[in-house]
């Protein structure tokens, strides 16, 4: 087997909203979407990266108490979670495509340090940097 990271999770405020964002606007695919009562295990993945899943989870019961869940929701909405990094072939083209789809960019593409990068956020507040791979 191949060893390594298989899944990493993001906290989101609404799984359906996050699903629409990551699938419809970013072009990810659903990997697993399983419900058990109110609980929903939802992971997506980048179409070119089948080895890694991105979990989209709402903080709350049964894994977290209500107060902790509320604090986490606030932290996500304040943009306090660690940044994510998305590698693309062409940052400007991806920016145009994603912006047309309604993605909220917090920084337009800037050319620097031998590459091009831009910033965007998901609806919950998670911050992404999009970086063009060095040729």
């Amino acid at each position, binding site marked *: 087997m191949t060893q390594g990271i298989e899944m990493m999770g993001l906290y989101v*405020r609404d799984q359906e909203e996050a699903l629409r964002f990551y699938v419809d606007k970013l072009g990810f695919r659903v990997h697993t979407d399983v419900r058990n009562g109110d609980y929903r295990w939802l992971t997506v993945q980048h179409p070119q990266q089948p080895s890694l899943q991105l979990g989209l989870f709402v903080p709350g019961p049964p894994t977290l108490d209500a*107060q902790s869940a*509320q*604090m986490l*929701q*606030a932290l*996500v*909405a*304040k*943009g306090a979670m660690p*940044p994510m990094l998305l590698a693309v072939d062409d940052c400007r083209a991806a920016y145009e495509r994603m912006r047309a789809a309604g993605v*909220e960019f*917090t*920084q*337009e593409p800037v050319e*620097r*340090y031998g590459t091009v*990068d831009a910033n965007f*956020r998901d*609806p*919950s*507040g998670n911050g992404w*940097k999009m970086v063009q791979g060095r040729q």
Partner: protein
Amino acid sequence: MDKTAPNPTNQTPELLRRLLRAKDRMDADSHEDWPVERLARVSHVSPAHFARSFKEAFGIPPHRYLLTRRIERAKTLLRDTDLSITDVAFQTGWASLGTFGRIFRDITGESPGALRQRERAAADQLGRVPACFLSAAQRPDLTIAVLEKRRRTVADTNGARKTKENRQ
């Protein structure tokens, strides 16, 4: 309920997300003017409530947050470019070179020129950290008002002088 507990505010994630939008806009264009009315519009909050809501969410008043971003950017430009100090001041949003120099010194403890010399003399050991995170790490931590910081510095200096006089 424990009144000393850090969070429990009544700010909803939806409100916080909208306040974050105002913070993001200052981040993106810190050289622009950001009066409260403009920020309040971005957040869909009334101007009367915006400053208090922002401070409650991020622990710092919006105008002071803007100062930290301007100084952070000025430090980057001083370190990484050959722009004159006047150009750095204007590009980071100050209308006057004098104000820039004074506030820069109040916040960082040294003049723009001195910081440039020191940064250039120091070896670059941070080359492996992505630039935006490196820049954020050098953002001033402005936990008190600039005027208060200036007042304390003057008080310290006076105190030191007095001690010296006493010793003599």
